């Protein structure tokens, strides 16, 4: 949103446009290549009220894409059906990705927002053995 806009400088109806220009084939354009406008939350950090965050451990990931499909905020980064990581500017810490992760141990786990990623990855839980 431009700063110092007067009342007469807005689009009527307080509507916001996602893109600066007209777009086509948006579904096949990666987010970083889309001409997002300033008023689109893609360019804003909106995850700052998160208190718990998911940490991704690629050692156990099978790229099933469950987390990518279930994430309600498009905050799982994935390319060519390979899990890349978490977009912490937009993730709200809901934990759904961890819930749906099917690996053993899970490839995503929730930690305190202030937890150190390297430390937690080094102390990742062992594979759980099934009870007979």
């Amino acid at each position, binding site marked *: 949103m431009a700063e110092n806009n007067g009342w007469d400088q807005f689009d009527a109806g307080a509507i916001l446009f996602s893109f600066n220009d007209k777009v*086509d084939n948006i579904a096949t354009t990666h987010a970083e290549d889309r001409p997002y406008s300033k008023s689109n939350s893609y360019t804003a950090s909106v995850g700052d009220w998160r208190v718990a965050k998911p940490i991704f451990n690629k050692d156990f990931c099978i790229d099933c894409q469950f987390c990518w499909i279930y994430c309600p905020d498009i905050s799982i980064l994935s390319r060519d059906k390979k899990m890349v990581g978490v977009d912490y500017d937009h993730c709200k810490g809901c934990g759904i990705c961890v819930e749906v992760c099917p690996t053993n141990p899970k490839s995503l786990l929730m930690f305190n927002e202030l937890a150190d990623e390297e430390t937690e990855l080094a102390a990742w839980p062992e594979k759980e053995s099934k009870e007979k």
Partner: protein
Amino acid sequence: MADKMDLLEVEVWDGNMAASQAFRQVQIDVVAAYPITPSTPVVENYAGFLADGYVDGEYVMVESEHAAMSGCVGASAAGGRVATATSSQGFALMTEVLYQASGMRLPIVLEVVNRALAAPLNVNGDHSDMYLGRDSGWIQLDTFSPQEAYDLTLMAFKIGEDHNVRLPVMVHQDGFICSHTAQGVKTIDDDVAYNFVGEFQPFNAMLDFEKPASYGVQTEEDWHFEHKARQHNDLMTKVFPQIQSVFDGFEKLTGRKYRIVEEYDMEDADVAIVAMGTSVESVRIIANELREKGVKAGVVGIRVLRPFPLTELAKVFSGVKAIATLDRSSPNGTVGMLFNEISGVLINTNDNPIMNNYIYGLGGRDLTMDHIRSIYDDLIVNAEAGALQQPLQQFIGLRGPKLSFY
């Protein structure tokens, strides 16, 4: 492609059918409705037209009036021509969404068949629901007969959908007295009516995939004020020119002349009654009667309630000695809305007419010719005395001891 309907030059329609036919002729894309008395036939007739192939659109049945207006908001934001109808309790339930519609600048047309608000429950006509909507940011057009309901409903689309205006429009008609009273209504040919209103032109449509828009954003103290100011500014400066332009075009097309202020015998009037709805026609009859007796009686009908034509009204009242404002809604603890509005019109003028206020017709109580005569009698006394000779506010047509205040 929708079938055309052959209409007689004059059809016998009640106000509801008149509105339904206007809805049909403009070929609405989406009607989301939850029918309520006395507006039920507006959407019932319309659903019939759609089922019989006279309309090429969608009719969405919903679970409440709140949902009906919400459906209208969604469809309008998506980029279609949208309308619905309601009354009374349904209108009250819609109220939250009315503000959403106007704030998002969605040109929805809402046919409001005016009815009293409970409690006590009542299905008959008064203006309580119309008054409830007056701060909602909608344009409010008032009609006095089925002919006017037909004409103004057609015009409402052309007024609200204009890209400079982009505001929702209520078309009001009195429950039962207008909505269920059949009269000869002069019709317009389907093609002529459609071409007059024109094909819907989407504007910042949510479903424009090349330029998608977000509707319903949140603004706090940083930007909310600016958006509300923009809306108020557009209501104040852009609506009257568009209404006048549409009225002019309609007169050219049909010969039927509408005015932003429906003044009647006001040029030289000493005494005047201000009213809304079907009462305007009744008051004109008594004004004619008084004119024959040499009394300079005039009538002002409020055609456009919002935005309120303050400066135009000041000109119309110039030189008038006594004015009565007739409010068909319980003010519940103060003077009637019209008394306040007309006082506001006159306070900074050099005119200093004696003004009083009558509360009448609540819950469908009749306003009789004798009631109107008695009001003009009061005005004549006040005009001659140059001072108010009765209480400022009186109830008319009420059982029991005379009720008056101030």
